């Protein structure tokens, strides 16, 4: 039972700063997912919480204790690694019992905890096997078991599912979510998988270049991305981001191609600047729409039939900006067609071109 508080946390390797000031409060029992591009510092941040990397500046507390100076083993955490990090020379049972033995927990208590974890994770029949005789999914579960038996205050996961095949990943994702709900242990989970990012956690942190761009519920992040980066990073296919000019009154934008779109709620004081106009592919429709809808016409270039959806790639006007629309179902169309698209006024996003921050 613990909350995790990060206060102005920074990390530098020599002169290079990789974490540039993170302030957070993760509530007791909360599940927070960290997502971001490769090299943005996700693992580094997680490893600082774990105590595997020194903290250059700032303070990390777990529960009521500042842990900056504590060894990993004293922080009451458990970590699941991407490559599982199981001890190859020990059986599944010994792998799970190793930490408890070091803590000098009585033998029958160790046995009780390991058996219980094995039961939860359906590993009972594998307890005597060495890890090399297990499948990827089973190894993953042993790694989870090793974390559970410690009864830690905090779970840390560093891309635990990225070595599994797609189907197993879905299954393990559900298991981890359920496990976290059942145990109610505060968890931090690093991933670069879109679906894991959206579905697993109570809150989602989008990290970019060592800075937290946004921290909010997955739906908040999806519906109201705080920056252009978040807008482009969350969602697949990515949001369409177009250069545009906001007129002086903040009432309409003109896209690079010349199309003019009037805004439902004028931005008033923020008018008269270059902006980035964003709309998600799934919010562009070729049917329906009403008088309030905003309209664009798309010159179709490439069509990708996904079965459930159709991705239409094209340009605005003859050689204008590129745009992707995701239309429901299977569509009959051909490159060269001109498609009339509409979008609900509330589905558009505007960002300041200079700062990248959301407007309105």
């Amino acid at each position: 039972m613990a909350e995790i508080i990060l206060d102005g946390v920074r990390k530098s390797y020599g002169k290079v700063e990789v974490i540039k000031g993170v302030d957070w409060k993760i509530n007791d029992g909360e599940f927070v997912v960290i997502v971001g591009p490769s090299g943005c510092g996700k693992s580094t941040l997680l490893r600082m919480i774990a105590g595997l990397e020194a903290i250059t500046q700032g303070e990390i507390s777990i529960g009521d204790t500042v842990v900056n100076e504590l060894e990993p083993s004293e922080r009451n955490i458990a970590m699941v690694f991407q490559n599982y990090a199981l001890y190859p020379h020990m059986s599944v049972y010994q792998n799970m019992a190793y930490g408890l033995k070091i803590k000098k927990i009585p033998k029958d208590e160790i046995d009780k905890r390991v058996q219980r974890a094995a039961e939860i994770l359906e590993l009972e029949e594998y307890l005597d096997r060495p890890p090399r005789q297990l499948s990827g999914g089973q190894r993953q579960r042993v790694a989870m078991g090793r974390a559970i038996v410690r009864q830690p205050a905090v779970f840390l996961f560093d891309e635990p599912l990225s070595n599994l095949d797609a189907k197993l990943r879905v299954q393990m994702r559900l298991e981890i979510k359920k496990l976290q709900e059942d145990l109610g242990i505060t968890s931090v989970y690093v991933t670069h998988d879109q679906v894991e990012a959206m579905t697993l956690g109570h809150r989602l942190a989008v990290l970019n270049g060592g800075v937290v761009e946004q921290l909010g519920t997955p739906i908040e992040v999806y519906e109201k991305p705080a920056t252009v980066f978040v807008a482009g990073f969350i969602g697949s296919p990515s949001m369409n981001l177009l250069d545009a000019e906001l007129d002086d009154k903040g009432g309409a934008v003109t896209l690079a191609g010349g199309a003019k779109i009037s805004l439902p709620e004028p931005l008033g004081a923020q008018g008269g600047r270059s902006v980035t106009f964003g709309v998600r592919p799934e919010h562009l429709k070729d049917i329906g729409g009403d008088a309030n809808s905003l309209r664009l016409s798309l010159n179709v270039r490439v069509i990708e039939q996904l079965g459930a959806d159709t991705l239409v790639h094209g340009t605005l006007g003859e050689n204008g900006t590129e745009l992707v629309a995701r239309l429901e179902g299977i569509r009959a169309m051909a490159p060269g067609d001109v498609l009339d698209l509409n979008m609900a006024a509330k589905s558009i996003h505007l960002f300041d071109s200079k700062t990248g921050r959301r407007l309105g």
Partner: protein
Amino acid sequence: MLKRVHYGSSILPFLLVAPQIIITLVFFIWPASQALYQSLLLEDAFGLSTEFVWFDNFADLATNKLYYDTFRRTAFFSVSVAGIAMGFALVLAAMADRIIKGALTYRTLLIWPYAVAPVVAGALWVFMFDPTLGIFAYALNVIGVDWNHKLNGSQAMALVVMASAWKQVAYNFLFFIAAMQSIPKSLIEAAAIDGAGPVKRFFTVIFPLITPTTFFLLVVNVVYAFFDTFGIIHAVTQGGPAKATEILVYKVYNDGFVGLDLGGSAAQSVVLMIIVIALTVIQFRYIEKKVEYS
């Protein structure tokens, strides 16, 4: 079926392997067969006549108490050299594995002794421990040890063991450090989170995982102590005083080239050959069972 590549009747492939085959024949197969043949002969003291005696030379060895003594001495010597050389290298490697800054310098320095020729190494140790001139002999005298390896058999043994082990530490170190660095870092981190301190981690995770390397080195070190230490012993003690440091290879040399008992000496080298073949077989058998890390 794999397709065969046809070279026609070209002699090129034969030419390409010829140097290796010639070297093996001239330097290994020929002397080995000579030794085998010689071990069945008895030559008189003046080298005037030889007689074919079948396995008499081996029978003599089997009943010779001095030969058994040499065997025991060699066993003691090998175990000491292997133990010290490996133990020391293991400690150094465990420490080097943990440092990051200046690791290259540290490693380079540690590898130097390996590049020193055995006889030179021997000369170095003789000089340092010379009862009248040596700096270490002097230091030992100061702390009350009366050092004279030229008279004291145990001291002579200690000296050749040290000199031989010293030369092998570098080799062992290289293998140990490579093995340690191939252990994924996350395993060590997992153990750290599990609450194991550096020493506990070493004994419960690192050491068990480098067992294949340890075993490989054990065989290599025993072979080294059996055969390659000749130069060191020759430079330091010549097997003395009173045969206190005469190990099997040195006895082969002593009996054959000094004592001129060619048949007996050849029989001893055949025994040594069998030992090294046995060690090699054990090694190959075991090395196939490799440990998987993840």
